[in-house]
């Protein structure tokens, strides 16, 4: 084996192959920076080149691309609070909080060092296990996968904030929203209300952007300060970031392990790995008080897991031809195009190619993290820019990213609707991670439950794998209640000194309750197998909703259920009313529907800069030109669609 590994290493570093790996890495970094694009867009750009290449060069390019996307996706997660890829959602929580404190470069450096560590760890595991992984992967049947989904849901305990009532409702809401569309067990359509768009469910990219990025953008918009509010950018932050990882090396190691395992299990999907890692770090830490408010460990955990995940995900991809994650699907497609067949032969007659892939993965991670680390310092300066200059760019980017999800104009409106949900969840202290975890795991929990009941009936609980995961889940639940993360902890303390008006909170909770009733009504129309899952979830939500309304109506101000960031915030924090960002963005979308996206972006930029940022006409012209050129260049080279208007 060692000989093969060394041989692969040698081939890779030969002058005829190395430049291709480098090309893949550079492309991956550029594309990864744009949220929502990921490997798919990269592949379409790479394909024309791949044809002329030999197998090794083509593989090196593909792996280089796929490996570094989670690395550079970190930039927007940390700097702007925009989840850069589906596996860097959890990074936003502490990464963005650090950026707001002026420690963006430290957070980025820690993230990249962890990515490097995770990526290398994944490659290392792959080297030793690839030949014996087949039977291990087959141990995970549908019953085990169902229990893993439940394990994932148990992370909600740590992430639900001070009020477990609202945390559970948020998670239930996520599960119900996640079950919109075709029922896995029967194929019948739930809660689609005759809208074609909803048949496939709401895309995760849009939910992640709307629940996390949208409220942050809206808040910054209203505060109109720089992202790193008054804070000074710490000098030499990036050295500290590297030191942080070294200090927490065991944490990085554990989370890399989690990432590799979750990645290796086909059917788990990469979008939950960062949450499991994040939940793990919260549960295993003694001092939990800083999580969600800028704890560097909250960056290290998800970032080491999400790069390790790619190594793990290569196992089912290579051994079974079944992609372990979204980017692996693209990688698999690329392999087919260069004529390499994934399957059992990858560990027999094509083992040399497998080692080439593994080493490309390792080297790509080193290159990607190195380059990103290099850029971390200068790019952190972005957080000093006055937000009104940055806002149009960020709004353009999230709209563009959302539209790439299904290329339907409704993508934008769904972004707006869930963005408003996100704004209020943030304002009233409802856990957004809980909602997202529920959303991500909904389909998985339901379809594997249905399968395991049919395959094993009650005997599924006798399977050793299920018993082990159940025990892990119980441990996770036990630890989770020993202290939960709440981003609003300081504000809650402040709020206790005030009598809060409850009307806005009650209206929001009532809207949630109405949705619950509507969803229940819809689920009761379905056949038994098609409706049973949402009915169980909704029924479980009802007692919590009752408890919530009890607290509201009895006006128990000391309870953590009662919270309103708007009323607690110091006077003058917000310079414009809550609906103003919504009107600007909604206006952009309405105009897009009429005249198309590019012309309305022009209008948006010009008017925003002139009236909100009050820049001179020259500056407005330059910034607008920059935005439009950026948009058109990207969509041109990646052959991406933009919303077309009616005319």
């Amino acid at each position, binding site marked *: 084996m060692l000989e093969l590994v060394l041989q692969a290493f040698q081939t890779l570093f030969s002058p005829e192959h190395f430049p291709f790996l480098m090309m893949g890495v550079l492309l991956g970094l550029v594309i990864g920076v744009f949220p929502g694009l990921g490997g798919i867009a990269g592949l379409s750009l790479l394909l024309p080149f791949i044809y002329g290449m030999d197998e090794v060069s083509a593989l090196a390019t593909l792996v280089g691309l796929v490996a570094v996307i989670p690395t550079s996706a970190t930039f927007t997660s940390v700097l702007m609070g925009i989840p850069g890829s589906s596996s860097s959602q959890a990074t936003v929580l502490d990464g963005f909080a650090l950026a707001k404190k002026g420690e963006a470069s430290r957070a980025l450096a820690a993230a990249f060092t962890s990515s490097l560590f995770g990526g290398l760890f994944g490659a290392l595991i792959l080297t030793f296990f690839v030949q014996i992984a087949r039977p291990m992967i087959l141990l995970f*049947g549908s019953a085990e996968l169902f229990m893993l989904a439940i394990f994932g849901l148990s992370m909600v305990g740590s992430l639900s904030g001070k009020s477990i009532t609202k945390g559970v409702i948020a998670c239930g809401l996520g599960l119900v929203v996640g079950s919109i569309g075709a029922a896995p067990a029967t194929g019948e359509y739930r809660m689609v209300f005759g809208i074609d768009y909803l048949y496939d469910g709401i895309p995760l990219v849009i939910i992640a952007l709307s629940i996390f990025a949208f409220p942050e953008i809206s808040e910054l918009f209203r505060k109109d300060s720089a992202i790193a509010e008054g804070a000074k950018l710490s000098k030499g932050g990036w050295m500290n970031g590297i030191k942080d990882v070294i200090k927490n090396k065991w944490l990085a190691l554990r989370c890399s392990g989690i990432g590799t395992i979750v990645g290796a299990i086909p*059917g788990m999907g990469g979008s939950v790995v960062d949450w499991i890692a994040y939940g793990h770090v919260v549960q295993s830490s003694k001092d939990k008080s800083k999580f969600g408010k800028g704890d560097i460990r909250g960056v290290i955990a998800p970032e080491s897991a999400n790069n390790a995940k790619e190594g793990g995900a290569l196992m089912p991809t290579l051994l079974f031809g079944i992609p372990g994650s979204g980017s692996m699907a*693209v990688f698999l*497609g690329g392999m087919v195009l260069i004529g390499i067949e994934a399957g059992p032969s990858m560990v027999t007659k094509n083992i040399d190619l497998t080692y080439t892939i593994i080493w490309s993965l390792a080297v790509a991670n080193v290159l990607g993290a190195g380059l990103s680390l290099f850029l971390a310092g200068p790019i952190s300066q972005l957080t000093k820019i006055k937000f009104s200059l940055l806002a149009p760019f960020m709004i353009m980017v999230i709209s563009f990213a959302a539209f790439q999800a299904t290329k339907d104009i409704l993508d934008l409106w769904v972004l707006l609707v869930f963005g408003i949900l996100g704004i209020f969840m943030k304002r009233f202290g409802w856990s957004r991670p809980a909602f997202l975890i529920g959303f991500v795991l909904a389909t998985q929990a339901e379809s594997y439950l249905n399968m395991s009941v*049919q*395959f094993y009936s009650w005997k599924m609980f006798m399977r050793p794998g299920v018993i082990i995961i159940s025990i892990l889940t119980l441990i996770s639940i036990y630890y989770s209640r020993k202290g939960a993360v709440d981003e609003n902890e300081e504000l809650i303390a402040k709020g206790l000194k005030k009598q809060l008006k409850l009307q806005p909170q009650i209206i929001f909770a009532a809207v949630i309750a109405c949705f619950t009733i509507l969803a229940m009504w819809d689920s009761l129309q379905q056949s038994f197998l098609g409706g049973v899952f949402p009915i169980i979830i909704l029924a479980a939500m009802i007692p919590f909703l009752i408890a919530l309304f009890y607290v509201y109506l009895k006006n128990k101000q000391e309870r953590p259920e009662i919270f309103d960031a708007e009323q607690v915030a110091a006077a003058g924090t917000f310079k414009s009313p809550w609906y103003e960002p919504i009107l600007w963005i909604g206006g952009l979308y309405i105009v897009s529907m009429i005249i198309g996206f590019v012309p309305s972006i022009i209008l948006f930029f010009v*008017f925003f800069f002139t009236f909100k940022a009050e820049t001179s006409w020259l500056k407005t012209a330059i910034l607008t030109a920059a935005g*439009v050129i950026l948009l058109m260049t990207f969509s041109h080279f990646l052959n991406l669609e933009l919303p077309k208007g009616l005319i």
Partner: protein
Amino acid sequence: MKNKLIQSLLLSLVFFLMYFGYEAYSNAEHTEITGDNGQSIESITADYFKDKNIQWVIPFKEGGGGDTWARFNAPYFTDNIAGNPVILVTNIPGGGSIKGANFFADNVKPDGLMILGTSGTTQMPYLLDDPRVRYDYDNYKPIMAYPTGGVVYTSPTLGIKDASEIKKLLDTPLKYASQGPTSLDIVPMFSFDLLGMDVQAVFGFRGRGAGRLAFERGEVLIDYQTSSAYLKNVVPLVESGEAIPLFSFGALDSNGNLIRDPSFPDLPHFGEVYQELGYDLQGIEWDTWFAFMSAGFGGMKLLLTPKETPDEIVRQLQAGIEKMKLDEKYKKTKVKALGLYEQVTGPAASKIFDLATKVDKEEKEYMKEWLRTKFDLNL
């Protein structure tokens, strides 16, 4: 305030002029024909596709079978079609391919600059009159067709060696990992039912790969894979004694008759197995099976353009495809990327197209009734 408004409007106007000017300029480079049949035929020169883009709509996700098919072909199309048009593969996944095909139906012009690649998955909801379908195969004609096949295999734990012993299986309750009742799985599930097997479908699997994994885990004991997936991933299992092939769905010869699949000449096709159990290859059950098998596998991949597209345009495309098939590099990589079957054009493509998309009302109704009684599905 007023000054700002005027300033903004002026600035916007300047940008608009630049943007629309750029758009107009880049459109002028690709002069489009009006698309009205007849009058523009003379204007279609030998270099019609020069400096043009062809948008190839794929109603599937990136990385899947349909996507790979298009992306594999795209560069060869560019090289071999006269004028070297750039092929832009546009993925519009959703609703089991209905969304992308609807998009094509709503936006296509008969100018050969937008083409649609459909698959068995796209044909099924059309044939079953799904109300969401807005595309109509009657309005299209084929540029290219690509058939495939499928093989049903079982676990050795069932104790049979080949299809001749299938009688022993009839009383064993089996489970089958399925993507859903209106997917391509309709063909194997209907096949099991015709043979009188007791197979219960478990839905919710995402893709055939997930079904194969369930087979390898021992959760299901019977499964099917399309030809290329079978060759790659099941043949090694057969060789190590972990899977027993039963039958293929067969293939269609140039007259549209069912024959043994040339990729698996040693394996009986479904018709042989059906006959051996004492059934005749006629009657509504058989006709329905044949119709849906042709739609799902015989016409697995179709490349379409509107019926009104001038013949000269289709001829240029087809000539390019035939030229591509002689390309040495294409010949070398094609088998690995797509499988053993040949991509066909001309009359052969039309024959496959007809078989795959024209199903009699009677057979449609029979299938719908079957879905109703079997899965309680109202279509």
